[in-house]
């Protein structure tokens, strides 16, 4: 089979797979929306007559059938995507993870792989809607923003011709897939509890954002007198101003955070969800943590393998490249997540919010970086080449 034929089959399978995923998402949404059918029960009537009652006639598309159909369609889409990526691999001779067209597709493929295994282990399909929302977004971004890339093969750059490509990028895909599953479970938690509508769920995020903005502000003040190394009165004043801003932010952040932590972990906070969904919510909370806990050593491995590869290819294990920085940010963030969970005993909605924010960081690290680099005119060795 010629390279063009392989690419044609790959492209058709990928686009078809996208639309199958779209149908799959509809079924998963329906599975969550449609109420559980009331089971029939025995009613004792007047005069001691016993009748079968209460249960409405079972509709054709009940919740269980919708869920089973969704899973079936998901497997079909998965097979199509696997075929599409496999054919592309065969056509170009290396893993399809090397540019802006291939990487999101490979990432979404890995998310579906992890999800389908998790679905069997969790014995529930209520997370499918969130997972396939993410998957559809990623595949749609790749196929419609870089659609022409499906017919083009980028030559593999010398630095990428290494076994470390498979090890480092493969590990990154698995890691981010687990974080995506953690994010999907957290989204489901927030949706089922209604916590996503409450601003206090996200209030924790205000302070880190304020600190980031404050630091940027401080840095720009610091830059204003000039970026040369010569000291001047203006520069000293700027550094002092910068330090004061940081100090104030640190003190305010510390006070507010300590209060918040005390509130969340104190007697007034009940980490165990209550109500009819309590067991399910507790399981969602637990699974979300487990998915993320699997990802944490993996992101450490991604950083380590990347450092070894960079040392071999670029002669330095760390160069403060934006991609390296955002991988570090992801690691620090999830290290924080694990610490507040294990050491502070956080549970429930705040952890779910942290899980969603974490996945947002993963998305920035994986896809958004290309836009940050472009917008802020930052040099990066890691940005995937935009296919023509």
């Amino acid at each position, binding site marked *: 089979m010629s390279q063009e034929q392989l690419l044609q089959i790959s492209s058709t399978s990928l686009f078809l797979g996208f639309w199958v995923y779209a149908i799959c998402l509809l079924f998963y949404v329906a599975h969550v929306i449609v109420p559980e059918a009331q089971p029939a029960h025995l009613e004792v009537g007047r005069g001691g007559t016993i009748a079968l009652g209460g249960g409405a006639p079972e509709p054709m598309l009940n919740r269980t059938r919708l869920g089973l159909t969704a899973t079936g369609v998901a497997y079909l889409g998965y097979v199509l995507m696997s075929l599409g990526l496999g054919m592309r691999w065969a056509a170009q001779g290396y893993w399809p993870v090397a540019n802006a067209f291939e990487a999101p597709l490979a990432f979404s493929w890995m998310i579906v792989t992890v999800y389908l295994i998790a679905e069997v282990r969790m014995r529930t399909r209520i997370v499918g809607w969130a997972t396939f929302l993410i998957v559809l977004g990623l595949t749609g971004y790749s196929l419609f923003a870089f659609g022409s890339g499906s017919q083009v093969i980028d030559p593999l750059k010398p630095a990428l011709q290494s076994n470390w490509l498979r090890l480092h990028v493969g590990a990154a895909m698995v890691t981010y897939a687990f974080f995506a599953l953690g994010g999907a479970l957290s989204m489901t938690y927030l949706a089922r509890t209604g916590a996503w509508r409450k601003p206090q769920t996200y209030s924790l995020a205000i302070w880190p954002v304020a600190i980031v903005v404050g630091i940027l502000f401080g840095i720009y003040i610091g830059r204003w007198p000039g970026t040369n190394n010569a000291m001047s009165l203006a520069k000293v004043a700027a550094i002092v101003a910068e330090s004061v801003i940081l100090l104030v932010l640190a003190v305010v952040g510390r006070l507010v*955070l300590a209060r918040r932590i005390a509130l969340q972990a104190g007697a007034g906070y009940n980490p165990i969800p209550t109500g009819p969904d309590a067991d399910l919510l507790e399981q969602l909370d637990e699974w979300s943590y487990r998915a993320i806990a699997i990802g944490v050593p993996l992101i450490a491995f991604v950083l*380590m393998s990347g450092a070894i590869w960079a040392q071999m290819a670029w*002669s330095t294990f760390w160069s*403060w490249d934006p991609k390296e920085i955002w991988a570090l940010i992801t690691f620090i963030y999830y290290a924080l997540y694990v610490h507040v969970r294990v050491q502070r005993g956080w549970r429930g909605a705040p952890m779910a919010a942290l899980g969603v924010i974490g996945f947002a960081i993963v998305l920035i690290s994986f896809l958004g970086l290309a836009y940050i680099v472009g917008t802020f005119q*930052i040099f990066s060795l890691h940005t995937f080449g935009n296919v023509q």
Partner: protein
Amino acid sequence: MLDSVRGAGFLSIGRIWHGLRSMTFAIIMLLAILCIVIAGSFLPQDSGIRLVYESWWFYSLNGLLMLSILSCVSRRFRGVVRFSFHAPVVHRPEFYRSGDTACALSTQVPVERASSAAVSALRSCGYRVEVMHVDGGAYVLADRFRVMRMGTLVSHLSIVLLVVSIIWGAFAGWLDKSVQLEAGGAAVPIGHGTGLLLRSDSFNFGLYPDGTPRNFQDHLTVIENNGGGREHHQVIDVNEPWYYGGVFGYDIHQADYGVAARLIAVDTTQASSGVLPYCALQLAIQQCTSPTADITALPSLLLQPLGDGSYQPVGSDVSAFYLPAQDLAVTLDFHDAVPEDNLPATAVVTVAKPPQTQGQSMQVLREALDDPITTRVFDGRPEMITSQPIDIGHVRIALLIWREAFVNIGHNPAVPFIFASCGLVLLGLVSVLYFPFSRLWLYISSMEGGAGSVLLLRGSAEKSKQGFKRRFAQISRKVQQAVVGSVWQ
């Protein structure tokens, strides 16, 4: 401890140490570093590194985090070691009744038989079991992955080791980027007191059809003792550096490549193609008393290969020399392409006779405009490609194109320690997060006034509490079945 801290002054060492040991402080440090790292990522890389990542306050925060980690580890060290290796088996009876995961069972089975049945059941669940018999009662301690608890200490201490190694490497190591080596040219000293010279014997590169590089083959030679010692040879590529002297020696990495154009003058009547002696034109012609024939010292310009065998000049520049024997001045003028104005790249070669008397102007003998720069083998040397040569009498002016390899040469003795620390961090995280430790305590005592026994079972897990609850229910059922079943054995 708390009292002593309260009694101390606001900035006493005890109070500071106590603050450093708190988890809240560690979380705040992590959060602060996270925010700063995010902020720095929005700045241009050089500004971000200079203004944020290499600033005194970022170093200070990292230092505080390291102190926080060390103080947290010191606080937990004894507890974790005790948990892992010296956990007490015997507790007071109230201990077994407390906690979220605890249950009680009474049975007609005597203590001895009940304890042996329970121990078997716990072992079959994958638990390591210790038993002590005290005052007619049996105390059982069962645990899984207890040593994995040490992973917390390993991962945190390894982070400190990693940072220390990085700091050591920053002081003890060096990295020279983009050292230029001319293929087949002279050896260049590596410097830094190594006494080593580095030479590129030949440099080949493959290109994809679109002109982007596919691979490199840089045949390098290291000469010891400032050029007077042994020679060592190695071929390097982008992902295949040369670790000269092992992991603690010197790393030579293929970094970049280039093609340099040089203008040469040769005598066509001579059999050999030696370069005619010349002087660089920036010297006053009258001072050209010792002309050189060193081809590698000629002024050169970088060219960008286009992938189809042709080359594009990079930037606009002029190189020139003077031939004293022939009294000729030769200039090579490159002009980069201007796509907006549809102007192609050009290479202009001018041969002129310098003014002989004051007031006389330069006499241009020949001017050639090469567009595009052509490629051909020069004098049977396949690595040399020339434009159309210009002949002035017996003097042939030609354009030579040389290959340039750019290598990074570095020495960082801390690198093995840095990667070993990373490995230990990974090991610690895997042991803690993939092997969740759990512990069960069982107390079996004689039933008051009867022949049976009472079993009190308590469990504890630091992570995955909900999963452990389910597991605890399964284990307690299994213990119950084993103890009750032991009646019939």
